[in-house]
């Protein structure tokens, strides 16, 4: 289901958009995948677009700063089909997520 749906949505704060622009200058086009599980599992993982080709069960929720934002469709259903707000918080990223020197991406429920 790699296509956006009407009810799905992801938005970004100005700080997140600025970080996407800065990282885009350094790495080229980006993509986000909402992670799950161990450690920093609730964080979105930012990577070069194409680094992880989306699979048939990845749902494209929308784009943020030009970058596609995917979530596993079953995880998305189990999380109650939330709308995500992409933001930036202090501290380095974990996992293999691209990040600025001392800031990393987070997602929060959009309100």
């Amino acid at each position: 289901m790699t296509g956006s749906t009407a009810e799905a949505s992801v938005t970004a704060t100005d700080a997140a958009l600025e970080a996407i622009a800065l990282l885009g200058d350094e790495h080229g086009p980006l993509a986000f995948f909402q992670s799950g599980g161990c450690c920093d599992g609730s964080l979105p993982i930012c990577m070069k677009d194409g680094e992880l080709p989306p699979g048939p069960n990845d749902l494209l929720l929308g784009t943020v700063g030009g970058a596609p934002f995917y979530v596993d469709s079953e995880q998305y259903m189990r999380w109650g089909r939330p709308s995500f707000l992409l933001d930036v918080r202090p501290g380095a990223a974990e996992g293999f997520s691209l990040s600025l020197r001392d800031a990393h991406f987070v997602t929060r429920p959009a309100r």
Partner: protein
Amino acid sequence: MATTEQSTTFEAPGRPGSPVQVKERYENFIGGHWVAPVDGEYRENLTPATGQPICEVSHSGAQDIELALDAAHAAKDGWGETSTTERSRVLNAVADTIEENLEMLAVAESWENGKPVRETLAADIPLAADHFRYFADVIRGEEGRISEIDKDTVAYHFSEPLGVVGQIIPFNFPLLMAAWKIAPALAAGNCTVVKPASPTPWSILKLAELIEDVVPPGVLNIVNGPGAETGKALASNKRIAKIAFTGETVTGRLIMQYAAQNIIPSTTELGGKSPNIFFEDVMAADDEFLDKAVEGLVLYAFNKGEVCTCPSRALIQESIYDELMARCLDRIRAIKQGNPLDRTVQLGAQNSISQLEKIEGYVQIGREEGAELLIGGERNMLSGELAGGYYYEPTVFKGSNDMRIFQEEIFGPVLAVTTFKDEAEALRIANDTLYGLGAGVWSRDGSRAFRMGRGIKAGRVWTNCYHLYPAHAAFGGYKVSGVGRENHKMMLDHYSQTKCLLVSYDKNPMGFF
């Protein structure tokens, strides 16, 4: 500090009287030497207990991974041909060294991770030592198999090392998870390049200082740096024969994809949302077993909930819910939170500000989706130098399994509780999750416990116990909790190739040509 506190609290690393010495900065451990990162970059390493720096640690990149792989490849033939007797001796020497430095390593681990020193003294560090000792023992009992194909034809099966492997360690048990990965790899004759978690790069370097003359140069190499650079450079490298990873699901997918691109095996452990199930017969008597079951529920707060197998969903039979929960809440109220280096403290600091904010976010989600907050629910602001630390109160929500706080791993001291009517409903709720790493079953009825244990889709079902991690018991996930196992001597197979020599002792030709 009060007199009583002085007698139970270790001095922080680097301070006078502390069992842990701290250098200003730490380099990579490559080829038995301390090697500065090629780009000369370092990052400040904080303690979550106060939010203050401990030291600087190398911030490496792809070039440093190549140096470590050079060292590992230079060592691999020699180590792979080293007798199992000698490999066993080296692993036992590592175990001896860990045990001789138990207090120092426990204090370093607590200070860097935020976990209570009573846990590192009694669990993390002794278990790490035992892991090396276990694989030192079992490797000597290994033997190949001989298959008699017919009277003149024999298949000899040998286990051979893979060569050089890559291993990526999580931040929640920095030394124990490193031991889980390093011990079987080395026992099977491999050399390894280890990438510790970015928030906990240092305690393993304290171990490396101790064993730099114990393990032959190049057999164990440690490179610190960010996952997106250092971790990726290792996981996607053509010079590794296997990659092992513990962490979140999307990076797990990347790891498996890199492994597929290079056609090498991977093992991944990606977390869980483990159910802990309490049947009504638990309360059939007010005895030691009931006391054990209550502790079994409260173990969600072990290591501040930063455990892949955290029993973060409690399923309680509705007939005993009120009484059992009352006892558990009494036990939770009595949890002492504070300085991780205080031996009497049971709940320390979350590993990072990022983790703390994630917990705050999930507690907010829990409130908004209508879960009932039974206890906790706030950041715990401690005083003095601990005011800058990342402490969160032990928290319990009551709700239903379709809520997000029941479906996603929070990685904090946050328990989601619900009730069930009968065994069938308990099993349905237990399996209604993406994950399948751990589970707990509590019952005085052995038959029921057995049925449940076999019915739950998880790799480890603790039955009338929880959070035991003996080296001789397999550990790993079903479903999206990952692929592969850790612990147990079966790990030697995960770190070995099978060589089959198919030998004919018949002098006669086959007769085809």
